[in-house]
């Protein structure tokens, strides 16, 4: 029995590693959602659309301006983040005094509009985007499988970005402002901190994280207007499981659930696309605040 499981596991290792790659995207996207929710109390339903914009901006930079992958990895999050500033300043900031639901409805509407515009301009069949030359070439031999270099890079980049975000929030002065403002924004402002500006920049940072994930995704998935909406549903489940607003929780849950999905593909492939939702239901029943959330 045990031998059989081990044998299956060995055969399934590639699936598990690919699960880790998916987990990298879950982690980055739920991290951005957690950052935004912690500070703004807004569930950013436009997150998937902003992820997709990140990929499209990388594609546009390459095909319209001739700017390649590496600069795009920095430029695209900045450009989409600036778009986030515009959205927050002109629309979301008007809703803070209302119920959370209004923020959710607004961002959901924005997601539909953004997707619609891109579908109208670029169609829905998807555009190709090649990985950078340095990460092309023959796959890396991990002993049990060959992994394209680019996928390895995605995992490393997502881990590094998650760690950097966690360090900024937990270990810096800016992070202390953010944590304090999450608890009592009025008092932080009464100490002389420009909280409205901080809120705008936090939203922009969360959106930029989504765009960063979008650029990472561009060479793996084809760049198409729906790439965000199919992913974001799973990411919301990840956020619910991890606990809304927890930074570390969203990263660990993101990678963890990617692995679980991979394992399910090995042992019971039929359930691989639903396993995350099953876990979500169980977590909601047993621990409604999420695995890492504060009740």
């Amino acid at each position, binding site marked *: 029995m045990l031998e059989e499981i081990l044998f299956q596991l060995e055969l399934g290792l590639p699936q598990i590693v690919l699960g880790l790659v998916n987990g990298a995207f879950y982690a980055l996207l739920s991290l951005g959602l957690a950052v935004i929710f912690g500070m703004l109390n807004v569930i950013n339903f436009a997150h998937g659309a902003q992820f997709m914009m990140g990929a499209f901006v990388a594609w546009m930079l390459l095909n319209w301006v001739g700017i390649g992958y590496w600069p795009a990895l920095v430029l695209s999050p900045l450009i989409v983040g600036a778009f986030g500033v515009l959205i927050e300043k002109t629309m979301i900031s008007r809703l803070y005094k209302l119920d959370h639901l209004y923020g959710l409805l607004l961002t959901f509407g924005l997601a539909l509009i953004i997707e619609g515009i891109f579908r109208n301009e670029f169609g829905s069949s998807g555009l190709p985007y090649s990985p950078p030359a340095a990460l092309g070439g023959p796959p890396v031999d991990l002993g049990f499988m060959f992994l394209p270099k680019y996928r390895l890079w995605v995992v490393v980049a997502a881990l590094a970005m998650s760690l950097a975000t966690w360090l900024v929030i937990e270990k810096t*002065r800016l992070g*202390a*402002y953010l*944590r*304090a403002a*999450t*608890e*009592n924004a*009025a*008092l*932080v*402002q*009464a*100490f*002389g*901190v*420009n*909280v409205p500006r901080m809120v705008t920049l936090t939203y922009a940072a969360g959106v930029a994280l989504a765009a960063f994930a979008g650029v990472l995704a561009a060479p793996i998935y084809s760049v198409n207007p729906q790439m965000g909406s199919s992913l974001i549903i799973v990411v919301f489940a990840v956020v619910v499981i991890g606990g809304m607003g927890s930074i570390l929780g969203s990263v660990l849950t993101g990678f963890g659930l990617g692995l679980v999905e991979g394992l399910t593909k090995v042992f019971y492939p039929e359930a691989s696309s639903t396993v995350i939702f099953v876990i979500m239901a169980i977590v909601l029943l047993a621990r409604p605040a999420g695995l890492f959330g504060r009740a």
Partner: protein
Amino acid sequence: MAEPLLKVENLEAWYGESHILHGMDIEVREGEVVTLLGRNGAGKTTTLRSIMGLVGRRSGSVRFEGQELVGARSDRIARAGIALCPEERGIFASLDVTENLMLPPKVRDGGMDLDAIYTLFPNLKERARSPGTKLSGGEQQMLAIARILRTGAKLLMLDEPTEGLAPVIVQQIGRTIREIKERGFTVLLVEQNFRFAQTVADRHYVVEHGRVVDAVSNAELSGAMGRLHEYLGV
């Protein structure tokens, strides 16, 4: 005579539909410790919060160093040199003691340095890494006062710093207030306990129904006890 450091005239304030302040008039001169005395619900806390810009709707005039602040946002008021130590203390649970202490940004030169603050509050140094809300009530109050001493704010507004604390801690807070006065800070203090107020303040205002109904200097206080008992119902 020079304009007082803080001059509040005809200040009115509302929480939603309820009209709380009905024309407050107070003056605080540089270097003074002035208290607002009054019963629960008289509008003392609302006065401090209105000066700080934390009450949504307010009218009248709040002049600080000659600068009109009644319409300003709270972060600008803080930058002008006013700091509030709120009644609920406002210690952040997700920040440790040092982070809480270092949180308010410097608004000017002239604040106390960290060594001086630790000399005044040695407990805060010992417990530097504890989460802010794991401190005792007295220590949290010390932390709440300590963190606004660093910023260089000239006017410190303390909202019932002795509330709910043991007598020995109350004495320590009294010593602290006298010490910060000696260092040249100006203090506007909300108190219900006028025996405590008497040990630290130069002047007292009595607040009732959102306006000042009496003003007493500390020297006159003993003679005015009868009146004060009437106002405060003690």
